[in-house]
């Protein structure tokens, strides 16, 4: 998975099939894994690099996941944490698709409403629904506004 580079550091090697998420906001790689449901008990083969030097961002994180291609909903979640992230879909060592992430206008089932009194936190057959506004996420059920620490509310 890794090889030595001449300067003595470790460089992540290419993957054959799967997804490379590049340009993740520095320090958010572990949150990206969390929202993708990747934990210590799942079986994906992963490479993670954090605080890597980046010309564009200063520092960035990179995540490589073997044998898994991300679906649109997963990409939406990543957009919340790392709006500059780039998703590369790899097949047979080739990048077959490269796309940026885009925060959708409405997030369904992605973020849990922090308002304990919100009906979406009761035992009802309904998904949380937020509209994405410049000032934060607005719950379309209870009107709560999530401004800070969105990562901790991601389902």
């Amino acid at each position, binding site marked *: 998975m890794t090889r030595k580079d001449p300067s003595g550091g470790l460089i992540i090697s290419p993957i054959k099939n799967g997804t490379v998420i590049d340009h993740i906001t520095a320090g958010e790689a572990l949150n990206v894994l969390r929202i993708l449901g990747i934990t210590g008990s799942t079986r994906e083969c992963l490479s993670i690099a954090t605080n890597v030097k980046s010309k564009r961002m200063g520092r960035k994180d990179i995540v490589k996941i073997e044998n898994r291609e991300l679906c649109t909903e997963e990409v939406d979640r990543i957009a919340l944490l790392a709006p500059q992230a780039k998703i590369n879909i790899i097949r047979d060592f080739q990048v077959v698709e490269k796309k940026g992430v885009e925060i959708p206008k409405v997030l369904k089932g992605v973020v849990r409403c922090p*308002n304990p*009194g919100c*009906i979406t936190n009761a035992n009802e057959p*309904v998904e949380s629904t937020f509209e994405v506004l410049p000032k934060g996420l607005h719950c379309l*059920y209870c*009107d709560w*506004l999530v401004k800070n620490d969105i990562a901790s509310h991601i389902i």
Partner: protein
Amino acid sequence: MYHIISIRDLERKELDYLLDRAQEFDTGNYQPRMLEDKLAALLFFEPSTRTRMSFATAMARLGGRSISVDSVEASSIVKGETLADTIRVVSGYADAIVLRHPKEGAARLASEFASVPVINAGDGAGQHPSQTLLDLYTIRQSMPIKGLDVGLLGDLRYGRTAHSLALALSLYGVTLHTIAPGGLEMPANITLELRERGMEVVEHEDVEEVVRDLDVLYVTRIQRERFPDSASYYNVASSYRITPDLLAGVRDHLMILHPLPRAGEIDPAVDQTPYARYFEQARNGVPVRMALLHEVMK
């Protein structure tokens, strides 16, 4: 299908239309049996006297009938039924559903599962649009709403009637004066939203400094449970109490409103002054709710 869920969903012209309709019902300018063959389900999962009775009265005045659930204990909710299922079932019984529920957003959820119109009669600390409409209606009975100076006094942090009313007033070019004890101020995001809507919002700590400049003073209840102990509650509550002495020198046309029930915010001696309009406001619940019921079921 037309639901009445949140005051945010209504534009100025829709508010004006509903207020005009309420006025027609108020002055007797309507067919008495307009909803003769209609049935409204009043689902009240939280205590309510005025709202529930005025919806039932409004339905009866239009010749319609209502069926009701008056408490969670008397419903299938105790058996673990979801609100979504209750709504789907009741949709098969009635022509409209009037819902009061302790969870915020409950009426929005109900509107998604109902096959008949839903009217929100208060969802937790959230919205209570029929209250806001009757507040607007009461003001408009006396004077045009546009350009007024309106004071909101009391618990502006948790008070849903204050939030809804402020949002509605922002459509009328009103200057809003907020007067709240420390810790119970209007939430910053609501104040921001009001200002984004172009409203001038002036914050005050003391009612005395502003009461003479107001056309409307809207008083809300300061709830004892918001305070750590009785002493601090009484200390705050007494400094926000409306008394005849406080009203010396106010504008002649000042109207004092309160969504009721009151718990001591307004001295009963104020009831005798021409400024006290809260009982008239409560009575206006009937024509306003007649307008809403007719609008969703016509």
